[in-house]
């Protein structure tokens, strides 16, 4: 088999404010025709930079050494991309290699119809008449599964759903029939159910179009589902390269082993939940719930002629003291809205939501303030949830100072040190600023801040979705330990079923603002009743190529019926 892309000893360095930073140090890699090569690694491992160098898509501050030889699909010509500039580079882009970006909603230009954007690429490379180009665009749209392409070709990006937009981006990449497609986290921004469809489409890109795919991802489930071969990157180097089955069954490098061990798997939590249930004191089930929602409705008022948007529609649930409720659903299902309503950040418009005895429907900030002392909140993005001008110690001390447990951050320092220790951060980190910590460290500090007042209720809104897998595992472990020790009740919001399964006593599945299923992990994940839960479960890729193949067959059956 011939190599479409042949990378030899690639070194990439960036000029930054802090001097030269080496992002890639000596990578050699080959992509064969018609195969899917997955490059996996944590953020900052150089996987995106490596893949982008194939298209010459690096910023001006980059300095590239080594060779990236790109061959055309028919094998007729090949050239080294590294020294190419301007017109020569443009000649290759699209024709020999194309790119699919992470976020479909930003990689399409909102002011042009999608057809125009596909034809733009066609006309840049060939002397096609308008009619021919349009016919070709319609054809490629049909092949990526856009219904009624003759008509929809003139629609604008906002008229398509997220999954359809990603299909259009893929169509844009496919239209010139390139030898290799670089897909940079193509499904990360999408919901699990949509992700399964896009993965299916990418597989067809390989089978029907014969394109090789360089898949950049951090999701091991996606790798198991789609890849033929895997390259694991760590700190700018490839630590392991293997066939996908070999890699998952017998990883050689210690880093790969750690990475695979950190991936949460479905079903891991069952034992754990049972053990927790047994430890409970008798009479626990009769205790007054910490949070009780009855027929909860949250409506966002529509703007200018648009109808109101009902984010949460008649949801009822309860959280008892010391219980962890996992709230799962795709984006737009209303899970974050429920969390925010519990913290008093979003107004409740109907039904009743009682948090620690306070009614949230029509609450007054002044009377709710004492209750806030008993609630902790952990935000999704640790990068933005810390004031960049305060040190970690000052930020963690903030709740203590606000609720007059300490006079000023300095007086709170002993308690802050305790808290940092509890989340396994060195005391000295208290004097650092948020940007000097890594994502995982920041999220642990965020957990420390959430727990500073020893709350009875902790609301964690996707606390690990911005983190790398290996970091996520440690944060989850820590969360579990702290919960066991301090015994707070928690609402754990996540889109990842496997993560929720690890921690939660009870899982609630939200779908379009409605609670479709609730129960223990065993019930919901083991024997899902609602069709949406079944679909959700089936579309979740598991990090095991053989098992995933079987699951994929099941999913296809489920989606065709």
């Amino acid at each position: 088999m011939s190599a479409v892309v042949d990378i030899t000893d690639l070194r990439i360095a960036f000029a930054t404010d802090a001097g030269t930073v080496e992002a890639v140090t000596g990578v050699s890699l080959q992509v064969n025709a018609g195969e899917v090569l997955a490059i996996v690694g944590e953020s900052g491992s150089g996987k995106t930079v490596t893949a982008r160098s194939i298209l010459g898509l690096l910023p001006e501050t980059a300095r590239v050494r080594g060779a990236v030889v790109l061959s055309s699909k028919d094998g007729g010509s090949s050239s080294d991309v590294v020294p190419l500039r301007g017109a020569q580079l443009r000649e290759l882009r699209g024709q020999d290699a194309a790119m699919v970006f992470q976020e479909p909603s930003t990689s399409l230009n909102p002011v042009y119809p999608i057809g125009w954007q596909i034809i733009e690429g066609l006309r840049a490379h060939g002397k096609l008449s308008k009619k021919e180009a349009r016919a070709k665009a319609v054809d490629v749209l049909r092949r990526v599964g856009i219904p009624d392409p003759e008509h929809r070709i003139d629609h604008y990006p906002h008229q398509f759903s997220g999954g359809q937009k990603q299909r259009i981006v893929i169509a844009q990449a496919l239209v010139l029939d390139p030898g290799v497609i670089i897909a940079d986290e193509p499904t990360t921004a999408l919901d699990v159910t949509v992700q399964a469809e896009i993965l299916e489409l990418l597989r067809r890109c390989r089978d029907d179009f014969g394109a090789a795919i360089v898949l950049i991802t951090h999701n091991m489930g996606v790798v198991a589902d789609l890849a033929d071969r895997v390259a694991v990157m760590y700190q700018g180097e490839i630590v392991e390269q293997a066939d996908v089955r070999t890699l998952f069954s017998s990883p050689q490098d210690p880093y790969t082993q750690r990475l695979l061990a950190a991936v949460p798997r479905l079903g891991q939590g069952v034992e754990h939940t049972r053990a927790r249930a047994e430890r409970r004191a008798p009479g626990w089930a009769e205790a007054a719930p910490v949070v009780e929602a009855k027929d909860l409705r949250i409506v966002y008022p529509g703007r200018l002629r648009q109808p109101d948007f009902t984010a949460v529609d008649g949801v009822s649930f309860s959280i008892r003291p010391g219980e962890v409720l996992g709230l799962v659903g795709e984006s737009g299902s209303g899970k974050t809205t429920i969390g925010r309503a519990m913290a008093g950040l979003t107004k409740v418009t109907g039904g009743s939501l009682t948090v620690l005895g306070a009614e949230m429907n029509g609450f007054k900030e002044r009377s709710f303030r004492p209750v806030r002392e008993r609630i902790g909140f952990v935000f999704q993005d640790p990068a933005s949830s810390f004031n960049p001008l305060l040190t970690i110690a000052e930020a963690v001390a903030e709740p203590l100072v606000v609720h007059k447990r300490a006079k000023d951050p300095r007086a709170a320092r002993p308690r802050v040190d305790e808290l940092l220790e509890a989340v396994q951060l060195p005391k000295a980190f208290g004097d650092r600023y948020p940007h000097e910590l890594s994502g995982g460290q920041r999220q642990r500090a965020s957990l420390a801040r959430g727990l500073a007042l020893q709350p009875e209720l902790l609301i964690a809104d996707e606390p690990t979705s911005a983190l790398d897998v290996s970091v996520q595992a440690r944060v989850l472990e820590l969360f579990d330990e702290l919960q066991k020790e301090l015994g707070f009740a928690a609402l754990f919001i996540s889109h990842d079923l496997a993560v929720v399964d690890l921690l939660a006593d009870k899982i609630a599945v939200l779908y379009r603002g409605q609670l479709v299923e609730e129960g223990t992990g065993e019930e919901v994940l083991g024997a899902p009743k609602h069709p949406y839960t079944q679909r959700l479960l089936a579309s979740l890729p598991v990090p095991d190529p053989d098992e995933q193949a079987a699951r994929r067959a099941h999913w296809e059956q489920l989606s065709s019926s």
Partner: protein
Amino acid sequence: MATATTPQTPGRRRTWRRLPVVHQLRQSVGLQRGMLVAGLVLMGVFVLTAVFAPLLAPYGYGQLRDAAGSFGAQQSPSADHLLGTTVGGYDVLSRVIWGSRTALYVIVIAVLLSIVLGVLLGLVSGYFGGWLDRILVVIADAVYAFPTLLLAIVVAIVISGGQSKMWGGIFAAAISITVVFIPQYFRVVRAETVRIKAEAFVESARVIGASNWRIMVRHVLRNATRTLPLILTLNASESILTLAGLGFLGFGIQPTSAAEWGYDLNRSLSDVTSGIWWTSIFPGVAIVLTVLGLTLVGESLNDLADPRLRTRRRAADTPEAAAEVSVVPGGTLAAPGGVADLETGADR
């Protein structure tokens, strides 16, 4: 106030290297650095001249005679009067030197007043929003619609009846400038506040139960003031021009109360046609250099604040040690030894 209680960690952070202008100076490279340094030198000369005016100036600003008798009008440069004398019989060099003092007073008062009021209004308006916000924005827009100088003239007349003593004139100029500048600070701070209000760390403060006032002072204000040094320098140069414009149009300060460049330019109008160059050139050059210095500093701060406009040294061919990329996400400025390492190789 709440902001004062920062536990200081000795020697590591908040050193002089992290001060606004110093930090940028260390960060800059090549032409941008040249511009910044030139601007800072000009500004330094201006401030020093103003501070040490009594020592530097050979005569007083309103002095017409010394022991040897009257200076005489429109004398060409000589050993006694290095830059000659004006039509009114004042020493040009002394007037130029004393004039820097007046200019500095006006800058300081105008900028302080407008910054305090503008920031406060912007913060309140942006944070609370609602009808107050709408009214303030409309007023700010209305002030923008006035020509600066016209507004300044009106205020000057209201305050001092047009002609005045030193402090009256300085305040007239300063307040008229303040009125014009408040909307600028107001808008910048308001826009930043609206942006920061939506950030997760402000929400996290709200969840904790912090009061509005605490959130505004501790979390919003300090993050909203990043662009202020930049507007400050640009406004300072504009305030000098306004002061000079007022003086030139005859709304300035009496020559016996204080020296003022715009007034001197006005008086030298007739000299220009009769070949007496020294009375107009020197005050004019003083204005140009001061404004140029302030503008250079402002513009380079602007460029340096924007990562896309900031030039960096090209990546070296053989980096000493490969840095770990993931360790300092978004935090390269304070990376361990980062800026310091840059500096050692910077000059040559």
